[in-house]
């Protein structure tokens, strides 16, 4: 530890480029996608980098539906696989997000949020896909949704996304916004050993004993790569422990409950937040993504002006970090939730609040970031 450390390689990167650094550090070897602003640099960068990674494969697919299909297939074959998209592409991917959740296929999907519905504002920021990330795929299914606010966090949260996908056999959505994705900042390039990297558990029993969806201690069954000698049937139909379709109520219930339980039991690991001066705060800002950066400055300025303000940055959006939000709401007189949408995460805050304290929202949907002064006006 005391040996002088080699000087780290630094780079001045876009958030999107940092996502690629994180993905490669996490062991990603497969990318399939279809380019769309403002996520395109992730794909461009992957196209440059993956061919130089051992066993790396990059495919440009014909659309986003096919992209998700390819990513699911690659993951079932044992790869750490990802794709990236924005609004319209994210909508096209919804059905197969549900398929990945049902078949418990690990994958990472980066959605760089732009403004507006439909084609909207392709080159402007938005945060309008928060509820869609949670509930966009039909049917009850657990899912993990993460976010990042700056370029170093893009690396960190991408690694985390892969780790969660592998640990919990779940699709993981990383929500960025146009500003985070298109801001350049200096980062130290990740080197092997910087991050703890987790890979899915593979079965250790003889192939003839293996049951792909059997209950285990952690609720997460081991997963062999297809073609490795373990029989493995994959279907989006509700299935029994062997992976074959079933509609027997006790089996249906057992499957769905296990799928939720495997996420619910590990809230402590999954729910990542950052507290900024919340210990004595009587006014709390709850923010994520690029808006968290505005909020950080606003809170600093409010403190300078003598207001006991604090900031809770949500890095995990779902499962919603209730255990962190709830105590703050019980102890503050005002909570402010600024978002680049008409009020999506503030719904969760209000749900947890249960009318206890005042929750004020700041909503901006004109393709511009919420400025520190806009937040300051509400809290000071």
């Amino acid at each position, binding site marked *: 530890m005391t040996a002088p450390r080699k000087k780290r390689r630094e*780079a*001045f990167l876009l958030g999107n480029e940092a996502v690629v650094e994180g993905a490669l550090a996490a062991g990603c070897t497969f990318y399939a996608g279809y380019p769309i602003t403002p996520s395109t640099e992730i794909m461009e960068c992957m196209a440059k980098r993956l061919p130089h990674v051992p066993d790396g494969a990059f495919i440009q697919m014909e659309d986003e539906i096919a992209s998700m299909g390819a990513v699911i297939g690659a993951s079932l074959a044992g790869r750490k696989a990802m794709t990236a998209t924005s609004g319209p592409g994210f909508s096209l991917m919804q059905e197969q997000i549900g398929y990945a959740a049902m078949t418990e296929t690990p994958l990472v999907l980066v959605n760089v949020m732009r403004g507006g519905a439909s084609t909207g*504002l392709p080159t402007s920021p938005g945060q309008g896909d928060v509820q869609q990330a949670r509930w966009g795929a039909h049917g009850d299914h657990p899912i993990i949704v993460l976010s990042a606010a700056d370029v170093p966090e893009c690396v960190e949260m991408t690694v985390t996304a892969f780790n969660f996908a592998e640990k919990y056999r779940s699709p993981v959505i990383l929500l960025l916004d146009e*500003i985070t994705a298109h801001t350049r900042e*200096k980062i130290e390039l990740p080197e092997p050993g910087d991050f703890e990297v987790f890979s899915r558990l593979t079965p250790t029993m003889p192939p003839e004993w293996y049951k792909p969806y059997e209950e285990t201690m952690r609720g997460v069954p081991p997963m062999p790569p297809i073609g490795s000698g373990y029989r493995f049937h994959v279907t989006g139909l509700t299935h029994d422990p062997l992976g074959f379709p079933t509609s027997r109520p006790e089996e249906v219930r057992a499957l769905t409950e296990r799928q939720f339980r495997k996420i619910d039991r590990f809230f402590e690991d999954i729910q990542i937040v950052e507290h900024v001066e919340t210990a004595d705060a009587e006014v709390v800002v709850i923010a994520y993504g690029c808006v968290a*950066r505005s909020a950080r400055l606003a809170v600093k*300025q409010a403190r300078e002006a003598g207001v006991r303000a604090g900031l809770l940055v949500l890095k995990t959006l779902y499962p919603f970090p209730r255990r962190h939000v709830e105590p703050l709401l019980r102890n503050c007189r005002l909570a402010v939730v600024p978002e680049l949408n008409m009020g999506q995460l503030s719904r969760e805050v209000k749900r947890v609040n249960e009318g206890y304290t005042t929750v004020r929202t700041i909503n901006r949907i004109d393709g511009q970031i919420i400025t*520190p*002064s806009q937040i300051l006006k509400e809290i000071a």
Partner: protein
Amino acid sequence: MTGAPKDKTLAKPAKAATAKAANGNGNGNGNGNGQTLARYEIRLSGLGGQGILTMGKLLGQALAIGHGYYVTQTQSYGPEARGGASRADLVVSSEPISYPKTEYLDLLVALSQEAAASYYSYLKPRGALLIDADLVRQSPSSVALALPFTRLAREKVGVPQATNVVALGAVAYLLPFARIEAMRKSLKESLPEKIREANIKALNLGYQEAKKRLGEPIALPDPDGGDEVYAARMDLTEIMTED
């Protein structure tokens, strides 16, 4: 001072050091010795295709990696493929930067009439305006610094596409905390071999022309108060929302 780059007068080659050291001593705010920066905000603007975003990346890279400042570089462009308004914004600081976008500009570089007209109002009262002398026919301010970047690139470098790098050379001269070597290094690292030589030439040309014709580098705002401009900027209720 922690995190600030080394004393530039020591690190600079002799010929370039003279002008800036003189400036540092001359304006009496001590900036010639150690370059601690509060928030310094730069906007590079023009039309799609002029290389504005590349210029932003090169400048940001030089300031972040070459000088060790905290830098956030953001960008804005229209949904059109080309021809629309284009801009790159940089915030440079000795401290970590929370809000990544610009608020009030210390330096505005405008390579088109439209850009000069639309962004002039974001300039601080004593901020500097640098324009392309040919392309900005009606300067919004009589105290603008003007060089014919496009003409210089076409006639002296022989590569009209190097306009942005000629402008970068001028910016490297004007910024009191920037070193031309860091720009050169940033350029060498980022550009493919076959266009490297022309761009180095363009950078040096911009630097020399600025030194010859634009007077002394820009003075930094005094962060220790007493400067009403700085105080006005810190009045947060006055911060304009982004356009």
